[in-house]
């Protein structure tokens, strides 16, 4: 019983980690792209 319970809990944690990674990537990647594009413009300030 307790082994089955533990494996369920582990599966839930894995699913949560996967969801977390996807969710953060969906917002983080475009944001990083936007910051990078802006910084290339900012470079003109110091060039």
């Amino acid at each position: 019983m307790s082994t089955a319970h533990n494996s369920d809990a582990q599966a839930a944690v894995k699913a949560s980690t996967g969801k977390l990674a996807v969710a953060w990537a969906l917002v983080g990647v475009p944001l990083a792209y936007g910051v990078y594009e802006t910084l290339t413009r900012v470079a003109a300030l110091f060039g």
Partner: protein
Amino acid sequence: MGWLDRERTIAPPGFNRWLVPPAALAVHLCIGQAYATSVYKTALVKHFGASLTEIGVIFSIAIVMLGLSAAIMGTWVDKNGPRKAMFTSAMFWASGFLIGSLGIFTHQLWLVYLGYGVVGGIGLGIGYISPVSTLIKWFPDRPGLATGMAIMGFGGGALIASPVSTALLKMYDPNSGAKGWVASGDAVGKLFLTLAVVYLAYMLFGAFTIKVPADGWKPAGFDPAKVKASKLVTTDNVSAKNAVKTKQFWLVWIALFCNVTAGIGILEQAAPMIQDFFRKSDGGSLVSAGVAAGFVGLLSIGNMAGRFAWSATSDLTGRKRIYMVYLGVGALLYTVLALAGSSTTFLYVVLAFFIISFYGGGFATAPAYLRDLFGTFQVGAIHGRLLTAWSAAGVAGPLIVNAFLDAQGKPGQLNASDYQPALLTMVALLVVGFVANLLVKPVDARFHEPRADRERSAEPAMEA
């Protein structure tokens, strides 16, 4: 549409609260597009044969509608929960672009006013406040950090929308390679259609990812007694209806209004202003148009970074103290900028960067400040009402700056000293805001919800 109801969004045990910030960010990154309208402004001027002011009205309507809808719909958002609010915001925001594109394709500017301005503006207001109360409830230990993450997205949205929109306009316009190219109306219309689809998908992802905590949930190891370290932080609750009757609400309103107006003072004229500050005796400027564009980009980064960094810092310093920094140190930096900003470009850039970071910080810290003063009961609705300060500043800021600058000449052909009256007026405003913030005291107990009633009213429908 029961699947949008708050009851259907209560998180199961073991739900990871770190899924909530990306859900909130998904909405704020989309509505942050509102600050990237300059990309197609010239194209719309040409397409409609309208003046810059007539096209600028589109953005003004959207910001006014943002404030109004946030104020009017705040209680509805608190009552119906974040999923329904985000879904509604997505519908309005995407419809705004669709109606706007119809206006562009049929050459009817009023449809763009109605679409992007009115309908889109309602989406902006609901979307802006939709995740705030939920984030505060998931992160009672770090409310400044949580709301800073989401509201940072509003600043970051423009950073994404700007280069993506430019690339799409080039793709949609066959003449994009021509010298002195300005995008066609057809290309802007297609851009609006694309943005409608992409933003709808992203915002729906946010709506279906967000969950509210179950009643009585608190983070592991969190002791509410520790949060009550400052006398300004209440464990009681004040309704939105009562909050607007308190002196504290209006003092924070004044502080936010002054902070935003002062920030807009720089943002409004950022590119011509840096060129004017470093004008040579022959009329040229030490700062080229390319470098000025880089400066505007740096301000966008400062605005976004300030929203996250300063708001997160407020969890350690307390909200009142951090506003003293935004307004007090902001006034000092503004004074140095006005009187000595033209001495070196490095000094000018550093001063402007910090001033704009304080502008962003003021926005992002406001929800946590309201939570401290009025509790979590209807903090979303109270925040919605506070955002009328933003709308008012959106009108007052450009009015003040333009009135002073018009008396001196035309931005892009002025000198540093021509800016002093406008900048020193902003310093005076920041001082007013500083004093208002200084006067903030704990809310009188007569405005608190009765404790027994509060327990009864802490039913799910009123929680997030």
